[in-house]
């Protein structure tokens, strides 16, 4: 079994385990659904990623020298995206165009850094994307 296939298999196994434990905790722990929801969402993301990448890539490597070069190029400019975003947020708040609380500003920053950074070439299913989805699932659960 190639390394790519093996990694996708691990993702699928982790996904199944997380979904199962999420469902069990939702059913067994009455009243508290946050942990169960987080496990369920994260598990589904792992599952979808594992299956879709396996179908898409098969035996071919996930990355090679070209994709690594693109990633490195993107990462070298990621700080600039962050800087422009922070700059925009500051002036929007300062000029009272948008009233941002600390929580919203931080949440938007997390979203930007974990999903929309140029270095993240495969955003929706990457590690950063997973972190982002987990963050939003927790955030949504907390907001009720």
């Amino acid at each position, binding site marked *: 079994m190639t390394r790519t296939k093996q990694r996708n298999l691990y993702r699928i196994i982790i996904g199944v385990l997380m979904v199962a434990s999420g469902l069990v905790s939702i059913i067994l722990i009455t009243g508290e659904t946050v942990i169960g929801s987080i496990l369920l969402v994260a598990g589904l993301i792992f599952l979808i990623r594992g299956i879709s990448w396996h179908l898409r890539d098969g035996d*071919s*490597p996930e990355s*090679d*020298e*070209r994709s690594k070069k693109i990633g490195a190029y993107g990462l070298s400019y990621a700080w600039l995206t962050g800087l422009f975003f922070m700059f925009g947020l500051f002036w929007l708040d300062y000029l009272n165009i948008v009233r941002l609380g600390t929580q919203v500003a931080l949440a938007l920053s997390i979203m930007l850094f974990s999903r929309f950074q140029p270095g993240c070439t495969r955003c929706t299913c990457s590690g950063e994307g997973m972190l982002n989805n987990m963050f939003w699932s927790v955030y949504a659960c907390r907001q009720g």
Partner: protein
Amino acid sequence: MQTRIKEYRSRLSLTQEDLARKVGVRRETIVFLEQGKYNPSLRLAHDIARALHARIDDLFIFEVEPEPESPEHREILVD
């Protein structure tokens, strides 16, 4: 940069997928290489040349403008 990867690959009846697997890269990289849109590392160029039973300079053609000959250079050539 121009490449003759496609020509050599066709001679060996290899698909882009086959060549990509042989040299350990994604198929997209072979596509970009064949279109001359990607400069490979020396290692990858070497691996591709080996896989296609060719030399690196047979596969990759760089268009270099001829340098104007300096008097010193001419002297060296004459010697």
